[in-house]
Every structure is written in structure tokens, then in C-alpha cells.
């Protein structure tokens, strides 16, 4: 073990004295200085890249808009795909398909039964519920399956009636399921 108290270790003081107080004049660690140099270099790069070059970087708002438009596009594509093989005939078939009517029943009981009744009669223990009965042949806004689908999706054309647009809570496919279930309960 060699302890060397060489000149290399002597304490460096600045010449300036005030009130008998002197300052150390020691070097910063080189790695510390290096972090400063990195920030300076980074500043130059960022300044050139963001403020000098005519590159239009999207700001956060534009990025958000882009993401939202991707989601909207995806939804529109799904809807288009759904509607491509969906017509009134197809609905008639779906209403006999338990893979549609079973999940449709679950959705109906959670969301729709409160107004239209568990048995679609719009009655609970004989008392009238807010919704119109769905088990009769009378349809207020069109009796075609696609028209029913549209009423569920976009709500009642008469906003004072309380049938809300369900598209915010249900996907297009889920609306198909619940409409299939309602159709399966029709007197034929």
C-alpha cells in the first residue's frame, strides 16, 4: 500500500479572498463535464432539427387526431364489412342462429330489458314500462331488420322518447346479435 501525498493531491485555492474566506478551485469530475457537453450537443441537434430544418413534425394534437382517425377508419371498415353481408334476408337466418341470439339475449337482459321488459312485452308485473313492446307486430320506426338495427344503433328519431343511440355502448356486431335475438322472439 502506497499512500502518496504528492503535489497532485494538494488543495487548490483561488487567489480571491473576501472576509478571509477563500474558494476551492477543484475540477469537476470529467464525466460530469461530459454530461454538460452532451446537453450542449443535444441542444444544437434539437435546435437544428426542430427549428431550422423545414421538417413538419406532428404536434401532440395532430398525433391524437391521427390516432382518432385511425380508430374511426377501423370502425367504419368494420361497419362496412358487417353491412356487406347483412341484409334483411341474412337477419332472418341469424335469428335462428344461437351463436348470435345467445349473446344477444345477454345484451338484451343487461341493457334493454329495463325498458322493454324481460319478455319483450314492455310490462313488469302487469305495469307498463317506458319502452314500446317488441313482441307485437307493431313497429314505430320500421319493421325491417335493418331498420330495427338502425334504430338500436342511432336511437329513436324522436329524441323525447328516450331510446338512446346505443352505438357508444355496443359495437356493430353486438347490435346485430341483440337484433337477432329480438327477431327470434317475433310471432311468425
Amino acid at each position, binding site marked *: *500500500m*502506497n*499512500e*502518496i*501525498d504528492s503535489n*497532485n*493531491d494538494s*488543495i*487548490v485555492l483561488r487567489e480571491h479572498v473576501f472576509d478571509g474566506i477563500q474558494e*476551492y478551485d*477543484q*475540477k*469537476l*469530475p*470529467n*464525466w*460530469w*463535464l461530459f454530461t454538460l457537453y452532451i446537453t450542449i450537443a443535444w441542444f444544437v441537434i434539437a435546435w437544428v432539427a426542430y427549428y431550422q430544418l423545414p421538417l413538419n413534425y406532428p404536434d401532440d394534437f395532430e398525433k391524437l387526431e391521427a390516432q382518432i382517425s385511425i380508430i374511426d377508419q377501423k370502425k367504419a371498415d368494420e361497419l362496412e364489412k358487417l353491412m356487406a353481408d347483412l341484409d334483411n334476408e341474412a337477419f332472418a337466418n341469424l335469428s335462428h342462429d344461437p351463436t348470435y341470439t345467445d349473446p344477444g339475449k345477454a345484451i338484451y*337482459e*343487461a*341493457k*334493454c*330489458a*329495463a*325498458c322493454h321488459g324481460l319478455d319483450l312485452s314492455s310490462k*313488469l308485473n302487469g*305495469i*307498463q*314500462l*317506458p319502452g314500446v313492446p317488441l313482441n307485437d307486430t307493431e313497429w314505430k320506426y320500421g319493421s325491417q331488420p335493418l331498420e330495427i338495427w338502425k334504430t338500436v344503433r342511432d*336511437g329513436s328519431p324522436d*329524441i*323525447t*322518447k*328516450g331510446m*338512446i*343511440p346505443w352505438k*357508444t*355502448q355496443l359495437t356493430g356486431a353486438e347490435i346485430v346479435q341483440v337484433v337477432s335475438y329480438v327477431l327470434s322472439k317475433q310471432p311468425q
Partner: protein
Amino acid sequence: MPTTRKPNLESVTSINNDGSRNFIHPADTKGKFTLGRRVFGALLLAVYILLPWIPIGDYPAVFLDLAERRFHFFGLTFLSEDLWLGFFLLTGLGFSLFYVTALFGRLWCGWACPYTVFLEQVYRRIERLIDGDASERRKLDQAPWNGSKTAKRVVKHGIYLLISLILAHIFVSYFVSIPRLYQYMQHSPVENAKVFGVMAFLTGALYFCFSWFREQFCIIMCPYGRIQSALTDDDTVIIGYDEKRGEPRGKKSDPNAGDCINCSRCVQVCPTGIDIRNGLQLECIGCSACIDACNTIMEKTGRDRGLIRYDSFNGLNRLKKRIMRPRVVLYTGLLLLGVFALLASLRGLHSSKVEIIRMTGQPYYIDEGGIRNQFRVQFVTKQNEPTHFALNVTGLPEGARAVGMDEEVILQPGQEATKTLIIQVPTEIYSGEFNLTLEAAVTPGDYTLSSTVDFVGPSTYTLNKGNQSPTKTETPSPQP
């Protein structure tokens, strides 16, 4: 010739006067504190490595599922909405650290800090294994590059990188779980670029810190190291040199000399390169290596152990020792307050949630059935078994009806559901807006959740007028 800078109070030993780095090679120590730290460090490492592997319930013991925003701790599940509890967790940890620091100084740094545990119990052990003891390591640093040195360096840094990779993967597994991490590892990094990026950054950071940066972090960057001097006082237990007993330093044979024989073992073993005999210093991480080193020498010279020991400044100076001081009382109070607040908030926290939200559209509807409000009711469970909600709507005036909450709601683990709730108040009994409450008796757990909303409707005055108009004749005269 390998040299060591002589430690002083004015500058940092690990930095040369020209700003370059002076690598510290602490000598080996043997003793009860070294052994204790090694055992404790191994325990902490085992906890760190094993937690993501131990399943409790359906999830690992600790699994912060960022993708699903569900946080699993030892069988308890928290959702992102419970994040406010983190306030108590962080302040609790902060106050605990204050408390421990006031009583025992930098105990955390030397014994429990992951940085120290990784450095002392993993990386430095590997270096010791490959490069030899302190003087051999110093010699190797100075030696010209040759085959043997190159081989040693390649092996050492190779193992460093491997260990850094393992530690980084374990860290990542706390957030993605072991099975998913294993699945990611079998695919191209591009597919999970974010997770891979975090892992790569961590590997780089760990490798940099423990192969090169080392004690620089503790003595220059660590914020806890910065504030600790404000948390301690003369009664705090620190690692200190008994000046009264040790000075003046001199040879063992010198009858006028104190107990310190000036062997400088305490300096040689210090991982931050200080001389503890200069008193408590900012760089000291409280690792207790100098205690073991000095005790070994004291035993060899036939003197009492404890020339360097855990003691307070007052104790070292033969002054009156105190345990209860104002700051200890204050920190204890703050700690208890924090614990109490945490317990109180945990008591109010349930493993499921019920919330009523008004539906979009008009705030209320009027038709033959009366005045109607439409709500969505959201059910969430954090339990890992099927959860039953038995529902009951209270606060309704006599004659009003709630529809949609008749059936019990059953949720499977991790499931959420939304149901429709319709409140109908016949116009003749409607006498203004009111509050209604949905109560849900939850099993398992046997507790009751409730959510309250306003029932809104027209003012009874305008409703009166409307009813008197000729177009609305269907309702009988309402109550005043």
C-alpha cells in the same frame, strides 16, 4: 507503481485533480458485518429474483400489469383508479427512510439499497473472482495490454453484460409477467419494440453503473445521499472512529500512542475511498467494512474491538446519549399518521365497484308513465373469484319504480358489466328532485357498496302549468 490518493476532507478521492477518475479497489474484509451484509444481500437478491415467479392466486406475487392496468400485490388486485393509494405508499416509504436515517444514519445505503447490493454482492464479487484481490486488481489496471489481461477483461465484462441482461429481464418481468416475457423473447425484438427498448436501456444502464460508474452515483448523484445530512443529528447512530481512544496514532510499541496503529486498513477497504478517521463524511454509505477491518487489526494487536463502531457522535465523544429527540418524536408521529391514513383508506377500499352514470340524451323524459330518468350502472370486480352483487334501490318516494336492478349481477374474475337502470316517478306523486342510492350487497366479501345520483325532473311549478294546458289532459292534478 500502483498508488492510492490519500483521502482528505476537501476533495473526493475517486476524482483526480485533473478531473479524471481514480478507480477505487477496496480490499477484502472478514467479520460479522461483512457476513451479515452478504447474507442480507443474498436474501434481498432472492426476493427480487423470485417474486415474479411465485404465483399467489392466479397471478405472480407482484405483477404490475401495465397493459391491462391491473396491479397485483400478493393476491390483492388494484386498478389504475386506486393509484391514489400510491401517495401513501410513497410518503410512507419516505417517512420510514427519514425515521431510519434519524435513528441509524445511512443504514439503508450500506445494507439494503439495490445499487449497493448489486454492486457489492454481485458485480464486485465477480471482479474479485476474476481479477484477484485489491492489489492484484490495481496492478492489472496499470499493466500493459497483453493476452492474459485481454482475456480477463473480456470474460469479466462478458459476465457483467450477462448479469445486467438477467437483472433487466427480471425487472421487465415485474411489468409483463414471466410467461409473457418468455413469449416475447422467442419473437423478433421489433414486435415488442417498447418492452425490448426498456430492457435494452436497463441492461446498458446496469452495465454502465456497475462496471464503471459505481460509487460516483452514491457520492455525487443520489438524492437520498444529499438530504441525509439534514436528517441526522449528534445522536444518530453512524459509523465513527473513536478519536478519544485512537489518538494519537502510533506504533503498537509506543506507550504514548492511542489504540490506532495507523495501519490504514480502514482506508483500504472503503468502497468510496474515504478515511473514516476524519469523521462522518458525505461519501460514507455506512457499509461497515471499516468496522470489520479495524476489529480484525484490534484483535491481532490484542486490543478491544470497536475502535471504529456503530455509535452516535455523542457516544464517540463520551457525551450523554439520547434516543428520543424532537426529530425522532416528529418522524414517529408522521410515520404513525401515514400508517393510520393508509389503513383508513385501505379499509374503505373494496375489491369491487358499482357506479351509476346518467345515460346520454335528455336528462329526463315525461310520458304516460310519469317522469323518467335513465342510468347506466357499471359493475367492476377486482376479485379473483366470481362476484355476486345483490341490488336494492333506496331513497325513492312512495309509488316510484326502479326497473332493471331486479336480477342479481354475477361477474367472472376481471369482468366488467354495464346494466340499465330506469327510474319512473308517476307525475301525480312527483314533488321535486331527490337523491336515490343503489346498494349492492357483494359476496364473497360480505360488504355493501353504494352509489348515489340525483333524480332530475321539471320544477313542480312548470309541471303544474304544463298539466293545466289543454294538450296534456292525461295526468290528474299533481300535488302542490
